[in-house]
C-alpha cells in the first residue's frame, strides 16, 4: 500500500466550538487544535489555577483492552509485558500512570491505564497513538481485543472549582479520589470519568460520546468558574507541575529511572518483587534502580528573567568545559512568575541547589537545580 498523499489535519468533535470561541488553531500531532483563546496563555493558565479550565484533549488515543477470557486480570497480565508497572495490583475503579518501554529501557510513550472491572481503559498521547495501537495489537492480541475508541471526545476539567462544577451535574463525581475512575450518566450521555489530569490541579478527564461533546462542553462553559483553555496553557501548567511531555522530556533515549519516574514502578515489578522484570528493557531499568542512573531529570530555576527553552545546553561552570546536561522543556511559569525548566543532568549534579549554567544565545546564564514540582500539586488524594 502506498502512503496516503494527503496530510489533512484531523478535527475533534469540538472543532466548531473552538472556532466560535475565537480560538487560535494550530497543527498539533496531526490534529487541528486550539493553542489559545481570547484570554491568552497567561490568563488561561492563571484562571485554571484560580477556578477551572476546560481543555479539549480529544486528540489523545482512547483504547479498550478487552480480555478474551473475560477476566480483567488476563488483560492486566498481558499489558504488564509492555510496561514496568504493577497492573495486576490495580484495583477496579482505579487508574495508574504507566510507560511503554523498549528493549533498551527507553520510553516508547507514557499512558494512563484504568481497571474498569471487565476490561482495561488506556489513554495514550496523540502523537504516539498510531504507534501504541500497533504495539498493543502486535503484543497483546493473544489475550485481548484491542478496541480503538474513535467515537468519543475527551475533555479535561481542571482546577479548584472542577469538583463543584462536575459534581453539580455528575452525582458522585465530587467524592472520587485522585486516580479513581467511574461511569456517570449525564443528560443522556455516558461519561467515563477519571479524577486526574495534566496540570497539577485537582480535576477530571471526561470521555464523552462525540455527539454529546459540544453539549457537555457548553454546560461546563456556562458555569462562571469555567473558561476554555488551549494547549499553550496546558503546556505551562504541566511544566509547573513537573509533568513530562513525551517527545521532549521523555523518549526512547531516556529510561524511566533517568526520567525520575521510578515512583511509577511498583515493588512487584522490581528486583525481588512478585513479578520482577518481564517488561522490555528490564535489565537496564532494574540496573538503573539498583545502581542509580548516570543522569537524572531535574527541575531548573534560571536565576534571571530569561527563559531557558528546550535544547539549551547545561554546563557546570560559567566558562569552558563540556556540557553536563540539556534542557528538555522550558519556558515561563505564570503561577510562579518566573522562568522554569526541566532537563537532564549528570547524577552528581542533580542535587537541588546545584548551580549550573545554561547557554542561551551564546551566553551562559546561571540556573539552580530545583525540586519538582515548581508549585505543590493539589490532587484530592
Amino acid at each position: 500500500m502506498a502512503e496516503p498523499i494527503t496530510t489533512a489535519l484531523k478535527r475533534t468533535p469540538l472543532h466548531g466550538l473552538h472556532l466560535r470561541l475565537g480560538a487560535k488553531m494550530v497543527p498539533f500531532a496531526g490534529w487541528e487544535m486550539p493553542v489559545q483563546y481570547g484570554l491568552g496563555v497567561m490568563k488561561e493558565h492563571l484562571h485554571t489555577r484560580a477556578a477551572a479550565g476546560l481543555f479539549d484533549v480529544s486528540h489523545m488515543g482512547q483504547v479498550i483492552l478487552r480480555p478474551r477470557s473475560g477476566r480483567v486480570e488476563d488483560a492486566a497480565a498481558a499489558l504488564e509485558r509492555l510496561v514496568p508497572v504493577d497492573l495486576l495490583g490495580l484495583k477496579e475503579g482505579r487508574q495508574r500512570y504507566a510507560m511503554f518501554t523498549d528493549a533498551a529501557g527507553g520510553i516508547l510513550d507514557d499512558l494512563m491505564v484504568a481497571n474498569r472491572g471487565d476490561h482495561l481503559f488506556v489513554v495514550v498521547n496523540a502523537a504516539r497513538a498510531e504507534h501504541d495501537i500497533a504495539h498493543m495489537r502486535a503484543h497483546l492480541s493473544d489475550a485481548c481485543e484491542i478496541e480503538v475508541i474513535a467515537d468519543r471526545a475527551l475533555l479535561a476539567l481542571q482546577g479548584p472549582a472542577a469538583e463543584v462544577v462536575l459534581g453539580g451535574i455528575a452525582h458522585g463525581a465530587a467524592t472520587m479520589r485522585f486516580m479513581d475512575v467511574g461511569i456517570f450518566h449525564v443528560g443522556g450521555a455516558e461519561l467515563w470519568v477519571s479524577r486526574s489530569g495534566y496540570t497539577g490541579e485537582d480535576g477530571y478527564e471526561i470521555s464523552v460520546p462525540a455527539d454529546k461533546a459540544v453539549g457537555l462542553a457548553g454546560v461546563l462553559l456556562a458555569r462562571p468558574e469555567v473558561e476554555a483553555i488551549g494547549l499553550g496553557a496546558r503546556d505551562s501548567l504541566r511544566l509547573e507541575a513537573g509533568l513530562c511531555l513525551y517527545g521532549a522530556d521523555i523518549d526512547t533515549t531516556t529510561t524511566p529511572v533517568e526520567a525520575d519516574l521510578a515512583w511509577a514502578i511498583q515493588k512487584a515489578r522490581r528486583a525481588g518483587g512478585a513479578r520482577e522484570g518481564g517488561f522490555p528493557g528490564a535489565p537496564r531499568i532494574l540496573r538503573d534502580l539498583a545502581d542509580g542512573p548516570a543522569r537524572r531529570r531535574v527541575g531548573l530555576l534560571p536565576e534571571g528573567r530569561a527563559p531557558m527553552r528546550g535544547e539549551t545546553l547545561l554546563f557546570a561552570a560559567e566558562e569552558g568545559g563540556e556540557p553536563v546536561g540539556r534542557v528538555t522543556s522550558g519556558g515561563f511559569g505564570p503561577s510562579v512568575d518566573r522562568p522554569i525548566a526541566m532537563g537532564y543532568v549528570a547524577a552528581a549534579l542533580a542535587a537541588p541547589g546545584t548551580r549550573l549554567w545554561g547557554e542561551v544565545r551564546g551566553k551562559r546564564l546561571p540556573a539552580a537545580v530545583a525540586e519538582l514540582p515548581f508549585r505543590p500539586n493539589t490532587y484530592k488524594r
Partner: protein
Amino acid sequence: MKFTEEHEWLRPEGDIVTVGITTHAAEQLGDIVFVELPEAGRSVSKGDEVVVIESVKAASDILAPLDGEIVEVNPALTDNPALVNEDAMGGAWFFKMRPANMADVDGYMDEAAYQAMIG
C-alpha cells in the same frame, strides 16, 4: 511613522529613529515575559538580531531595520516586559538608533500599506 514587513514601527525625529513592534505583532506573540535589549552604543547592520522577545510560548528576534548605532534602549521593558502587550505603539518602544543614512527610512511602508499587508 513607517512600518517594516517584520512588524516593526519606525518613528523618525531629527537624526534619531525610535523602533518598536506593532500592536498586531504583540497580539500575535501573546503574553511577553522577557525582553533582551542591546547595549547602547552598539553599531548594527540592517538585519542584525538586536532584541529578543520571549512570550510564554516562544522566543522571537527583532531585527535592526537600518544600519546605524543604537543610542538608547527602553529600561521600562526590562522591568515590565508586559508593557509590550499593553502599549506596543507607545511606551513599549525598544530602542532609539542613529541611522547611517536617514533616507533609508523612506523605503519602508506607510501605515496604509502596513494595514493592507496584515489584512
